[in-house]
């Protein structure tokens, strides 16, 4: 292990709100940094892009993090660690293939007009509502929720019920053990009802498709795994995208010259979305927790010892051996193979959907509102502590 000093507290503090944390700057001085997770357990953060990318494809790192003695992220919440779900190959790849077919770019492009339509409706409602508006509640959350509900066959109105439960399900230190458990149980019952409703009346949606697989071959997808995947798709379908819509718009509005550049040429939007994803002002590497099954040597000779808990750092998006001027937002970057969606076989299954929603959101909001601006000083943007993601709780905007 290359680190012998006291472990640094992780995730790093976001202060000031629209800047990359200072800790990200010298992080790569060492290839491996010992960090302390919110649970109090420690983990080894792999800091350099080259190592991170290689380790995402290294089968000596297991994603079955419910395995003892993997470090825990939260003191009172198992989060995504479930001993009954096998997240390693070959099992994982077979299950993943059942869902990824619905998330290919080719299929998703057919949904783009719907995303534009929903964006238009939400902006109509913003126009009719009070100003300033909170972009998170008025736009960033409802847009991906409407789309994932459409794909899964979930009534969009259900979000009144599932959002609070998901919030508790993803608590790191925000809630007490009792509240986490209440949310976990509540989410479980909700999903059971949802799946039963689809069994009774199947439709042309992803939940019905998963049920067909489960009914035809329970070995391919058991009842338990079915529930797991529906939950995963629902949560992953909106929480991260909503957070990224809010934070990336705040970052953009804080850099008016880039907004102006985009308005002059909207074909720059996909590149801007990609760069804002690289910039990652709402996430941390908690989602990349792994368990080392064997000693693994890094490119500089440092060794990740067998039995350690490892995180593959999204902060490696700032590795200046790969990204020129990494702390600058450059929407014309052409080589932008960032680690925000991970890499290897666990590459975010919803990445193409997220990209499309982010592109439509960015272009839609900038087209509709030529004077869109933050309605509070940027220092007042606040990140609620103790959640899995570090999105702003509100992004007040005026136009």
């Amino acid at each position, binding site marked *: 292990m290359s680190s012998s000093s006291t472990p640094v507290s992780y995730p790093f503090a976001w202060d000031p709100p629209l800047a990359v944390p200072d800790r990200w700057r010298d992080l790569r001085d060492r290839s491996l940094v010992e960090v302390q997770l919110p649970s109090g357990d420690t983990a080894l953060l792999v800091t350099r892009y080259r190592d991170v990318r290689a380790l*995402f*494809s290294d089968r000596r790192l297991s994603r079955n993090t419910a395995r003892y003695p993997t470090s825990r992220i939260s003191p009172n919440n198992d989060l995504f660690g479930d001993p009954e779900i096998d997240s390693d190959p070959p099992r994982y790849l077979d299950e993943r293939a059942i869902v990824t077919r619905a998330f290919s770019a080719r299929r998703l492009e057919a949904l783009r007009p719907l995303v534009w339509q929903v964006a238009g409706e939400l902006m109509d409602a913003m126009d009719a509502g009070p100003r300033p508006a909170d972009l998170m509640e008025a736009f960033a959350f409802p847009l991906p929720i409407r789309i994932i509900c459409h794909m899964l066959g979930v009534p969009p109105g259900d979000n009144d019920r599932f959002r609070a439960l998901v919030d508790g399900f993803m608590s790191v230190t925000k809630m007490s053990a009792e509240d986490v458990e209440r949310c976990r149980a509540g989410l479980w019952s909700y999903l059971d009802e949802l799946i039963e409703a689809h069994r009774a009346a199947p439709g042309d949606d992803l939940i019905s498709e998963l049920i067909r697989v489960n009914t035809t071959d329970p070995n391919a997808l058991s009842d338990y795994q079915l529930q797991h995947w529906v939950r995963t798709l629902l949560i992953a379908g909106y929480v991260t995208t909503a957070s990224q819509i809010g934070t990336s718009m705040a970052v953009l509005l804080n850099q008016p010259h880039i907004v102006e550049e985009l308005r002059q040429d909207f074909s720059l939007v996909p590149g801007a979305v990609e760069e804002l994803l690289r910039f990652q002002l709402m996430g941390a590497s908690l989602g990349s927790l792994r368990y080392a099954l064997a000693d693994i040597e890094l490119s500089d000779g440092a060794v990740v010892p067998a039995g350690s808990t490892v995180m593959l750092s999204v902060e490696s998006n700032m590795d200046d051996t790969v990204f020129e001027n990494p702390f600058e937002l450059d929407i014309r970057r052409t080589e932008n193979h960032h680690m925000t*969606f*991970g*890499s290897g*076989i666990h*590459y975010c299954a919803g990445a193409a959907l997220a990209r499309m929603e982010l592109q439509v959101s960015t272009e839609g909001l900038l087209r509709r509102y030529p004077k869109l601006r933050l309605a509070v000083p940027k220092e007042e943007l606040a990140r609620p502590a103790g959640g899995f993601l570090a999105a702003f709780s509100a992004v007040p905007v005026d136009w």
Partner: protein
Amino acid sequence: MSTGIRVTADAGRCVVSSLCVYRAPAVFDQDDDGHVTLLDPRPPVEHHEAVWRAARGCPTRAIQVEFEPS
């Protein structure tokens, strides 16, 4: 001197990131399962840079590019 490239893509390694389809849509497509397919294994020079980028960026290194002497 090499002027041509030959592209191969391994659908068995593909995990449907869709990145290649965005980066080089003239060369890559997806089958019904979302797995990579090739539209043009010997693409013309104007697509070479995008193909290289797609190969470098593929999360599971499912795309290989070789120079081919013309």
